[in-house]
């Protein structure tokens, strides 16, 4: 185990909050050190390797009290520091150390913090560890964001989690597959167009449109017949899909979508949609 006394001394070299000398209990702002001074602390941690990083993680509290702002500031500074071009080895060590502390009975607030630092400094090597948290109600959002930032290796994690995802987690995963433009998910996304929850349907519709999936034209056209907010969202999905198809040279398919919207948005309140469709159709001729 890392020498916690020495680690505590390194943490203590992070600045006090403003006005700390006057009132230690006050919630306050932070004036950070110069990078040169901070780097001396970061380098000392990194020289001690994985054990030191894990030791620092052990000092992070559950976030319900103000005491651990210094160790969080230090760990975040490390996350940014190791992303510099010449620090690939340290980055690999750092992200592995963080990923190794996920799961188990470590407080969820701490796990969330670690995942957020992996959003900064992680790459595909930690995607599996982060992916295991996608269905967790407390850290699932953090995990999704981290994977989306990491990019490479993320889609597989979302696909794997989707069959068991419910409610908000399901919506997050459907949406993420659209953000990643994961073509391998097209079938699952089309299936989700029949979901019982409007948010899930809207997420799936948007994802299919963003993919530019030619096989989804009919299902999106049909979905655009919904009412209210879902109608607005599915109409947008249709327009986005048409744009993607047009950009890919599929003029006739794009035109089909535009014609449908032009012909069905007959109420004056949707004239703006009709006009958008007409503009699109002009480009698809």
């Amino acid at each position, binding site marked *: 185990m890392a020498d916690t006394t020495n680690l505590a001394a390194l943490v203590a070299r992070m600045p006090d*909050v403003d006005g700390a000398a006057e009132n230690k209990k006050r*919630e*306050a*702002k*932070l*004036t*950070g*050190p*110069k*990078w040169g001074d*901070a780097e001396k602390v970061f380098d000392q941690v990194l020289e001690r390797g994985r054990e030191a990083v894990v030791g620092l993680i052990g000092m992070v509290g559950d*976030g*319900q*009290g*103000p005491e651990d702002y210094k160790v*969080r*500031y230090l760990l*975040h500074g490390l996350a*940014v*520091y190791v*992303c510099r071009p010449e620090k690939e080895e340290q980055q690999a060590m750092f992200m592995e150390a963080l990923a190794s502390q996920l799961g188990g009975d470590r407080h969820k607030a701490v796990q969330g913090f670690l995942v957020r630092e992996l*959003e*900064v*400094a992680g790459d595909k090597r930690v995607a599996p560890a982060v992916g295991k948290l996608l269905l967790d*109600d*407390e850290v699932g*959002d*953090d995990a*999704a*964001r981290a994977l989306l*930032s990491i990019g490479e290796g993320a889609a597989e994690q979302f696909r794997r989690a989707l069959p068991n995802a419910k*409610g*908000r987690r399901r*919506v*997050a995963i459907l*949406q*993420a597959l659209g*953000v990643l433009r994961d073509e391998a998910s097209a079938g699952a996304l089309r299936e989700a167009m029949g979901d*019982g*929850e*409007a948010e899930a349907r*809207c*997420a799936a519709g948007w994802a299919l449109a963003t993919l530019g999936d030619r096989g989804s034209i009919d299902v999106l056209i049909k979905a655009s017949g919904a009412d*209210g*907010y*879902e109608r*607005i*969202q599915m109409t*947008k999905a249709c*327009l986005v899909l048409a*744009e993607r198809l047009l950009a890919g040279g599929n003029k006739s398919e794009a035109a089909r979508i535009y014609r449908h919207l032009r012909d069905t948005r007959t109420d*004056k*309140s*949707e*004239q*703006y*949609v009709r*006009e*958008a469709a007409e*503009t699109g159709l002009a480009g698809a001729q």
Partner: protein
Amino acid sequence: MGGKAMEQRRRMVSRRGLLKGAAGAAAGWMIVPRHVLGQGQAPPSETFGGALIGCGGRGGGTYGELSKELNVVRLAECDVRFKDRADNKKIYTDFRRLLDRKDIDLVAIATPPHWHALISIAAAEAGKDVLCEKPMTRFIAEGRAVVEAFKRYNRIFQVGTFGRFGMSGKKDNVLIHKIMRSGLVKDCKAVYYQRGGLKVKEWSGLVNVTPQPIPRNLDWDMYCGPSPLRPYHPHRVGGTHRGYWDYEGGGLADMGQHALDPINWLYGKDDTGPVEVEAYAPPAHPEATGMWGWVKLRYADGFQIVLESGEWGEPLEGIKGRQVKLSDLSEEDQKKVLEMPDPEPLRTFAEAVKTRKPAGGNPEAANRTAALMHLSNIAIRMGRKIRFDPVKEQILGDDEANRLVNQPMRAPWHL
């Protein structure tokens, strides 16, 4: 998120709830909604249905700008702090219900910035024109999404800063603008330098807070929206939200759009961005915005913007502002510039709504200004120089820095 909060969200966004929409609460108003008469036609009374989303400190001012030179009837307002009094007829907590109303034509948005892009886009999707508070966005990719949405639906957008209108009304400034737009300036020596006025300390965040109970009238989940759902603390709401990366980017992002938008017009940069950004600042905090010393942004043609906070670090030495001058060009090129037509006068929001032509603070221009603040903050947060491709709007050769260009959103919110 706890079970009670989850149940509340489920009720809020249930299919039935969304599909019901907001029934016409405007039945008593004698107005002819714009959409009835279609594009390019002003209603006989030239009266518009208006709404305000985000009724805090800037709400009144933003709505006032929306209704300048237009006859606007205020039909609805929406705020996440209206939980105790929302009736979904005039008072809302969920902007989607408000936007579903057919009698609303114009929307003023004065929420914190992490909502600006999403609500603007949603308004365009619902057929509304928008006047949105600055900063336009929280990160760069949001701006591009707003540009695309307003183009897709041919709606009007104006960002809530107006310095460029005064700037563009002066003859000397028009000449500078033309010089820069001519493409004839090689190795531009102009430097815009500003020291102070960016409220760095004032609008930085707290780092050692203890979470507090959520006020009963506040829908905290909706407030956080696309940003992470953090434990509640009052400093994250109501003006001081500026001090948190989750909602804004400190004084630099907030005051930056005021300071730099006129400059962007002046130097003809409404359709491009810098290629290199460097900052001098301490390591950034993961959640709270903090101090910085200076930022330098350099364009491909040599033009530079230098911002010095005057609140941290040693003062910058040897930096002076410098205008571009006609005499920077050859005699032949000077003639060409003088023969160029003057740029079209910038349209106010009211003029844009009536003519259906872009407003002076349109999405592309506003996005390019906002990008200056966002790139500055990225350089501050990453502690290293960044190179930017203003065409692709991507940071080059630095994947981790590039993650801040397009930041993931919390579901169900997305661009």
